[in-house]
């Protein structure tokens, strides 16, 4: 799954957030309505699509979707 496809998955999952706001460089914590529940959904999505189970520390170390995607790729390699 490339970054563009990952963004599509996020847009579909977070359908309460306007899709144009979900871009590779958006700081996802800055999105209106972002909550701890969204962080759990992100962990589930990454686990489902990449087979990587992120830790809380992993999530804390990234801010944007692109950074998250790169973190996952690094774990896969």
């Amino acid at each position, binding site marked *: 799954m490339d970054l563009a496809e990952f963004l599509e998955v996020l847009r579909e999952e977070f359908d309460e957030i306007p899709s144009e706001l979900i871009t590779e460089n958006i700081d996802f914590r800055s999105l209106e309505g972002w909550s701890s529940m969204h962080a*759990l959904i992100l962990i589930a999505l990454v686990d489902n699509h990449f087979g990587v189970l992120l830790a809380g520390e992993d999530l804390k170390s990234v801010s944007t979707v692109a950074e998250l995607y790169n973190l996952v790729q690094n774990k896969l390699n």
Partner: protein
Amino acid sequence: MKTRISHISYHLPKNILTNRELASILKCQEKELDKKFGIISRHVRNEGEVGSDLAIAAIDNRILEQKSEFDFLIYCSESSDFVAPPTSVNIHRRLKFPNTCACFDLPLGCSGFIYSFGVASALISSGQANKILLLFAEIPTSVIHSEDYDLRAIFGDAGCAVIVERTDSEFQSKFQYGTDSEGLKFLSVLDSRTKSPINSNWLEKYKNERDFLAFGRMEMNGLEVFRFSIERVPTLFKQVLEKHDFTIEDIDLFVFHQASSLILRSLQKKLNIPKEKFFEYFENIGNTVSCSIPIALKEAENQGKLKEGDKVMLLAFGIGFAWGGTIIEWKKLD
């Protein structure tokens, strides 16, 4: 000797905490809470109501009629009426069970149904019992601080009664259990007992809480509990299938501990379980800890989702971290 679940009855306290009430406290939209938790309302014990009250309220006439036939009364709960004797003894006394019915407690949480059912099955299979009454009573709201909103939204109180007895069926349920004790750091109610008894500072700190939170305060790291669930349960799923020499296609219905909508949804997707075979029942009761599986089984039968001979996978997981799983062959409840 094989065992079957022959009867289930349950009770929910009359008090209901709705998302409307929670939303007004949190000053947010009711719909946000509906979506966030997948739970619309949950039941909360009445003032002074204890575990034995909910367990007794769950016992219907069908069970009372068989009172003289039970070899054991097993009470599974994290909420005991006293330090000693066991709460099962208090229930035995209150309902005047005969002295041929022995009692003991199992102080387990969300995994409690599988452990209790497993112990009951072992007692029956080894010839030590023919019929056992399992009682579950959960009052998690008694250890939740009024400002711990996520916990208030997720958990609900309930009582449940289950009869397990001998059967001539050929099907043998096999059990898988496990514990990751590092989970103690992430989900616990640590205070109020001998290790760290409550003191005057505690009473002062929680003077505005119901009962001064004197039974302890639940603490949960939601992220770690979630990670545990989506990491551990798939392994348990595989082990339980292998123990029975089954594949996913052999299972007619999956009834997991009703932890939260997000955990259930994630597991259903991760395990590729068809939605129509994945039973959920928590929208109006929340996570009722050890009561969640037997309540879901009862509702699945009520809704016509279970028929004679169906193979049903039961998986439970939670505080400890502890987990357990089995597969049962469904027999219509008495």
